[in-house]
């Protein structure tokens, strides 16, 4: 591995996998939330207490970013699957797009969430 110069696309390939694994683990939270909603007010209260806490908010924020980044990075892979975007500058542009776009969408979603009263 040492013979390769570390590139942005290589680093982002690892991030795509890492975010995928994080999302995999995070589905437990999603399942817990849905099961709690079906179980009743007490169980749902536990989920809300957790997601409302500082650590809970950090996890959900991280989950939002992982989801948005993985989606955009995945769209980038889809462009490559279709046979486009293989030139050096195109590869870089797509990769920067996924990186910046993922962060931007995450911030946007959280601004909307707080603006619509989700921060309560």
């Amino acid at each position, binding site marked *: 591995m040492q013979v390769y110069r570390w590139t942005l696309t290589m680093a982002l390939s690892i991030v795509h*996998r890492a975010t*995928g*694994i994080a*999302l*995999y683990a995070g*589905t*437990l939270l*999603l*399942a817990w939330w*849905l*099961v*709690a*909603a*079906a179980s*009743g*007010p007490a*169980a*749902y*209260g536990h989920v809300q207490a957790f997601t409302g806490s500082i650590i809970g908010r950090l996890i959900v924020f991280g989950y939002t970013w992982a989801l948005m980044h993985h*989606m955009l990075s*995945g*769209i980038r892979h*889809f462009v490559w*699957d279709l046979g486009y975007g293989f030139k050096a500058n195109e590869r870089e542009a797509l990769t920067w797009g996924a990186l910046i776009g993922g962060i931007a969408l995450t911030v946007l*979603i959280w601004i*909307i*969430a707080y603006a*619509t*009263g*989700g*921060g*309560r």
Partner: protein
Amino acid sequence: MSAADTAKRSMRTPLGRVRNLGAAHSGTSDFWRQRLTAVAMTLLMIPVLVIIMMLLGRNQAGAKQILGSLPVAIIMLLFIIASAWHMKIGMQVVIEDYVHNEKLKLVSIMLNNFFAAAVALASIYAILQLSSGV
């Protein structure tokens, strides 16, 4: 006997022997399903985000009312099925890449299937229960 000799003696055509195979011995079906579920989730992303926004700050009764409505339930079910399938395939690729011990690999792949199935079934059951008003 080399592979070339085997090919000469066989009645099967070269294409017939390799069709549906590949490194994972299952051909390209996982590759295709990975992309199918990815596109499905990308298309469902905005409706799912809208649903989650609607649920924020509401209590269980409010959440039940929203999640139990037919269009919301259908969108959530489609998203759950696509994500469970997608993550099962994705984690299997990771396992096949990094776990080289054959037995450990098989156990890991099995646990991966159990995890994806359990998460999917629990979520689907919850949505159906919310919809049926039980």
